[in-house]
């Protein structure tokens, strides 16, 4: 099964396993050194798309991930502006992937970070993610496709990296200006962050290495099941082991099911939240982090999915769907079931003829 050693994914896993816990030491929220879902949610809040006052901050890690992937793809000849593979369907997949992630409280990256810091409530999420991916793989085998993209102009491909730069400008404006429309949390997870420079450098570094390695939490499981190919899975295993060792060394490893930072121990909804994310992201072709990287490489459909994630965060908080350490909300089950129904119907109905 592990026929060939997957150098770059393992390098990416080790890099992530070292950098993420370090960012917690530098000030990021507990078990949340880097989280694509949580951090996009914070950005959504900072821009006023939701008004949950405790989760508002323009996370430089996200900016760095996109720009790092952009620069790396330019150097490696991987920058290819492309568009047109069912963007609206991807937008909705992004919305539901975010809702599922916020019911669980984390993207697949953070799921592994939570586990490696001893948060055993993540195990239900892992099971949910795997089941979600298996359902997605079932649809892929049946011929599910969102259709082909086409090359588009360079200017269009630059839009996401440009948006990242604009976000950085807004971050500086929010930090230094008076009475700006940018909202920053004064308490709660949104107020906890490493310094801008450290966060940005970490994001740039990870963005470049994830671009080179194609690191993806969905592909890790999907390719193992679908293709008997453990290339990316090796990277995820490296991440889990490295993050565990680093958390242990830094004194951040606290085993248990309860009292974990920014997490709840509702097994059923941890499972179903991640299952929803798992299906949505398998249909979309990659985890939220991977979508950020792709959007930096010129894949504007991935950029549309990222927009869906940001809007999904707004919906999740405005409609009271996002969980808190106290548990899930009253409205969350309905949203999760609507999301599952959407993904399953799309999985059945969206097809392209195969050879």
């Amino acid at each position, binding site marked *: 099964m592990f*026929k*060939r050693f997957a150098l770059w994914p393992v390098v990416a896993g080790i890099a992530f396993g070292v950098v993420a816990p370090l960012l917690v030491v530098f000030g990021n929220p507990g078990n949340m050194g880097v989280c694509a879902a949580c951090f996009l949610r914070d950005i959504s809040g900072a821009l006023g798309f939701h008004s949950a006052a405790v989760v508002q901050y323009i996370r430089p890690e996200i900016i760095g991930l996109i720009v790092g992937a952009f620069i790396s793809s330019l150097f490696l*000849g*991987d920058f*290819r502006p*492309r568009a047109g*593979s069912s963007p609206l369907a991807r937008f909705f997949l992004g919305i539901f992937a975010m809702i599922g992630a916020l019911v669980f409280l984390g993207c697949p990256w953070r799921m592994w970070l939570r586990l490696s810091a001893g948060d055993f409530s993540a195990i239900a999420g892992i099971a949910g993610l795997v089941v979600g991916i298996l359902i997605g793989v079932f649809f*892929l*085998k049946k011929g599910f*496709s*969102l259709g*082909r*993209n*086409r*090359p588009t102009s360079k200017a269009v491909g630059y839009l996401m990296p440009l948006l990242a730069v604009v976000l950085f400008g807004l971050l500086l404006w929010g930090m230094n200006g008076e009475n700006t429309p940018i909202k920053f949390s004064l308490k709660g997870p949104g107020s906890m962050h490493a310094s801008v420079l450290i966060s940005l450098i970490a994001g740039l570094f990870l963005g470049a290495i994830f671009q080179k390695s*194609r690191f993806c939490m969905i*592909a890790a499981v*999907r*390719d193992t099941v*679908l*293709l*008997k*190919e453990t*290339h990316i899975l090796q990277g995820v295993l490296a991440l889990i082991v490295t993050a565990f060792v680093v958390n242990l060394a830094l004194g951040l490893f606290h085993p248990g099911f309860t009292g974990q930072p920014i997490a709840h121990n509702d097994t059923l909804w941890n499972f179903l939240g991640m299952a929803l994310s798992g299906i949505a992201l398998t249909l979309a*072709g*990659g985890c939220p982090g991977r979508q950020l990287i792709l959007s930096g*490489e010129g894949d504007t*459909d991935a950029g549309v999915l990222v927009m869906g994630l940001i809007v999904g965060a707004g919906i999740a908080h405005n409609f009271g769907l996002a969980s808190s350490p106290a548990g899930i909300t009253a409205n969350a089950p309905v949203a999760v079931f609507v999301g599952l129904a959407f993904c399953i119907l799309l999985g059945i109905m969206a097809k392209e003829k*195969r*050879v």
Partner: protein
Amino acid sequence: MKTIDVRGLSCPAPVLEVKNVIDSGAKEIKVISDCGASTENIQRFAQNAGFTIAMKKLDDDTTEFILTK
């Protein structure tokens, strides 16, 4: 020789198409692909399936693989 065009398909569709053709028993396959992750995936998958790969760059964005067993 069987020819498949996987340009513009997002992962894992390109490698899945190649797998389907390999599973159907084809010994000679021409794959037209654009660069990026799918190109690497196709090469890796074909190698693992015991194919030899001849690669030709058609232009900046298009690569042609001839897979033979």
